[in-house]
């Protein structure tokens, strides 16, 4: 792919052609529902468990075994659907999708074709553009075939029967960036409503893309499905490569090279897509209504209950944080990355009555803790920290009881031990020294013999104060208030800021 493309709005142009090519993109996203048990049996599922240890006659497709729908899966699916504004069907049924593969023990997947549990809905991008959803349906996952042992293929059926929702967009997406943004927003939403952990590395979120290009204003051309996208980054990159490939193929003028309807695999290492199967090799899935599961009526009371359980969604929170709490776009974005962080922020902000300071402490200190080897937590609920303790600490720092540096130390201890701020400040002896005489004594000691510095400061180079301040802070063992020390030093020297 050597063709150099420039972009102008939604259009892609090559130096040679002069044609304005517009990509047409649709996404199919599978999210694993965060239920205790699988979709049709009582087996639990854990990523990384001993192969085939989480199975039973139902999810291994033993002769005679029958599926029974897990009501909790339907509830989570409803919640996700309501969060994207989809219309819930009053009646839904499952269909069998028939195809032969070793990781699908019945050689059919129980899915939904004719009457999915919801239709419509959509997600708004930051540009204001709305990506419409065609449908979302419920289905069971397949197991995993592992081919990496020479001629042997091993099959692990732990994942077989795990509940998934598959959401399919309309072809409303026009660029790799929009696809990335849509996917990010969708992930946030399913995480916020508690429907899915949506961790792509664990396969809890999987994305296939459909992409074609057409000259601006012209009719749709052959659509290519790209699979094997293992990260958000690869979704974006695969789209970039595939769009470029299609444009180059059309511009070559060689009809034999024109894109055809097919399924391609993305090779992230080589940075290219390759044919997986052509249209004529496409499966005939022979869908028909699943006779083992009668049609389900979705009671309106259940829908209302799930609607009631919907939390405020990330986009709405970001808007509120900006408009009502005065946070920056950046802070609003960081704090709404996950629901537990946003919830923590809102509690601390409410208790401390200081939203900006709360935002700073959480985005700078709390989130950093997740990469701190001494704090064995990867999520907010794994920290020992209690929100009202953090709120109190923010109050103490603002009041000058402890300085910011000491506050950081206290917070780290709070996240480890869960002990209250005041107790830690006392124990660690971090309370600031208020005694003016003591402070002055430290300042004079630090200035002794520093005539050059004093002269510099008097000449306006206040930067030179840094080293002296450091000495004062060391002498106070961190208990001096840096602002007061600075003011005091300037007064002693007889200089101004």
């Amino acid at each position, binding site marked *: 792919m050597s063709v150099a493309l420039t972009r102008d709005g939604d259009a892609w142009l090559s130096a040679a052609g002069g044609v304005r090519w517009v990509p047409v993109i649709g996404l199919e996203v599978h999210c694993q529902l965060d239920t205790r048990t699988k979709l049709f049996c009582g087996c639990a599922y854990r990523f990384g468990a001993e192969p085939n240890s989480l199975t039973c*006659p139902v999810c291994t497709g033993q002769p005679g075994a029958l599926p029974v729908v897990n009501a909790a899966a339907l509830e989570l699916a409803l919640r996700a659907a309501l969060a994207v504004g989809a219309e819930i069907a009053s009646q839904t049924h499952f269909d069998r999708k028939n195809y032969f593969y070793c990781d699908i*023990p019945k*050689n059919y997947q129980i899915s939904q074709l004719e009457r999915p549990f919801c239709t419509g809905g959509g997600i708004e991008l930051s540009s204001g553009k709305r990506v419409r959803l065609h449908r979302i349906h419920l289905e069971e996952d397949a197991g995993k075939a592992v081919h990496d042992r020479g001629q042997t293929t091993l099959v692990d059926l732990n994942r077989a029967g795990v509940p998934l929702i598959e959401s399919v967009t309309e072809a409303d997406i026009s660029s790799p960036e929009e696809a990335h943004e849509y996917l990010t927003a969708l992930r946030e939403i399913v995480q916020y409503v508690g429907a899915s952990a949506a961790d792509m590395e664990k396969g809890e979120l999987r994305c296939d893309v459909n992409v074609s290009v057409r000259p601006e204003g012209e009719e749709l051309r052959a659509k290519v499905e790209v699979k094997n996208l293992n990260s958000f980054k690869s979704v974006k990159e695969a789209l970039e490569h595939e769009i470029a490939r299609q444009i180059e193929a059309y511009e070559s003028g060689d009809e034999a090279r024109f894109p055809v309807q097919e399924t391609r695999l993305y090779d992230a290492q080589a940075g290219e897509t390759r044919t997986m199967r052509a249209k004529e090799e496409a499966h005939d899935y*022979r869908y*028909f209504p699943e006779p*083992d599961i009668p049609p389900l009526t979705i009671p309106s009371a259940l829908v209302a209950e799930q609607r009631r359980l919907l939390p405020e969604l990330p986009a709405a929170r970001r808007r509120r944080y900006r408009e009502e709490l005065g946070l920056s776009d950046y802070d609003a974005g960081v704090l709404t990355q996950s629901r537990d962080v946003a919830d923590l922020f809102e509690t601390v902000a409410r208790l401390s009555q200081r939203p900006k300071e709360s935002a700073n402490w959480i985005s700078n200190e709390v989130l950093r803790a997740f990469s701190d080897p001494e704090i064995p937590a990867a999520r907010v609920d794994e920290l020992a920290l209690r929100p009202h303790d953090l709120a109190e600490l923010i109050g103490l720092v603002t009041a000058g009881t402890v300085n910011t540096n000491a506050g950081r130390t206290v917070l780290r201890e709070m996240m480890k031990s869960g002990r209250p701020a005041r107790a830690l400040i006392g124990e660690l002896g971090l309370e600031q020294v208020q005694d003016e005489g003591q402070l002055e004594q430290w300042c004079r000691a630090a200035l002794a013999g520093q005539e050059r510095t004093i002269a510099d400061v008097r000449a306006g180079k206040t930067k030179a104060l840094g080293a002296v301040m450091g000495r004062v802070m060391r002498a106070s063992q961190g208990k001096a208030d840096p602002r007061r020390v600075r003011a005091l030093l300037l007064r002693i020297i007889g200089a101004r800021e």
Partner: protein
Amino acid sequence: MSAAYARLDATALRASILAGERTCARTVAECLAGIDERDGELAAFLSVERDWARERAARLDARLAAGERPGALFGVPVALKANMCTEGIETSCASRILAGWRAPYTATFVQRLLDAGAIVVGVTNMDEFAMGSSSENSCAGPTRNPWDVARTPGGSSSGSAVAVAARMVPLALGSDTGGSVRQPAAMCGVFGFKPTYGRVSRYGLIAFGSSLDQVSPLARSVRDLELVTEVISGHDERDSTSLAEPPIEREHPAAPGSLSGFRVGVPREHFPHDLEPGVRACCEAALARLEAIGAELVPLSLPHTPFAIPTYYVVATAEASSNLARYDGVLFGLRAEGDGTLPGMMAATRAAGFGPEVKRRILLGTYVLSAGYYDEWYGRALKARGLMRDDFERAFEQVDVIAGPTSPTVAFRLGERVDDPLAMYLADALTVPVSLAGVPGISMPCGCALPADGGAGELPVGLQLVGPARSDARLLRIAAAFEAASEDLRREPPPGSAR
């Protein structure tokens, strides 16, 4: 075989054990002796679980001696069709593809039998995956009719029907998808009852046509059918198609043996012009007997009956093509290596493992579900099925039950129809509409007749009574009234090898 054992139905056998006339151990010994005596010739059983049955009998005797309350089927030997899962027992569906497969769990209805004190003595022969009407599709070879061993016992629950008819067991379970219990019951001269679809949990019944399959008992009396249906019916949380109702309860009619005030519908489509004359004569006599005990006969029409066979062979084969997809050599059963690739292995396994009739039906089912053909075949069949259901609903606005022959012919000769699948399919023409409508039906012996094919010995004829959906208990009571009034019409099968 002990004459006493052979004479007793399940109800009487249990009573005799509780009266101290016999132990469970002796009952099992008599049962096993009967199997030894008769089954070499009849081939009803694929496997006999002697040790398990003896151990269980000894345990039951000990529990009774210890004062435990006996279950409803206490000490009763029962045979299971080879498509019913019992943990650790070979459940092959009479197919090479599942030869040697031992079920890793126990079916709900089998567990209910065991909980009621029944003793499972063995697994019976059948048409492979319940596809067939003669037992000739079994990979183990055919079962023989005790009335004439050159003839079919019917199918697909062939072994279960024969085990009851030849007095090897008082009670057996079969499965009925399009007539697979009622038709062999008729051809073997025993009682066979297909409950309303969903009445008995299918969890652990290896699927053929999921929307049609129903576990169905065979017995020598209506009261035994009531007894066992009471035990195995009732909602099962493992089968979402099982009726959300408690087990059936026996109903008692106002006047036992009388059907005064009942209306019995006689559909003209169930007495076609080509009905075997002996079958017609027996069934007309049975209708007269119903009338004699007070029932009013009402001629009526089920106009969509002629579409039943084509409809059934679309719906059932479509479901079967999907249900049988799992037999691919990956996880259980036979594996043939083929060319070593995954598709090659699957194809070779299925080619080697399935018999010709099963392959025929998988191909049919695959075809009718294929892109572009679905609407024309499967979609239309579903519509036709709805029309047939409507036929029955309309009929039951006028009548309490519908009566007619179970099978258009008496037992035919083995080998006679193996090369003519359509003729074979027509053996189910009168039972299939009932299955498609999901309503309950019972086949009862109503006399014997000479076959139209020139055979010399008389063969049993079955009368089918059909009731509205969920009317199982009432249908069985009406059947019991007929049973009581028709003792003189029934005959015992000849005791030994007869030709």
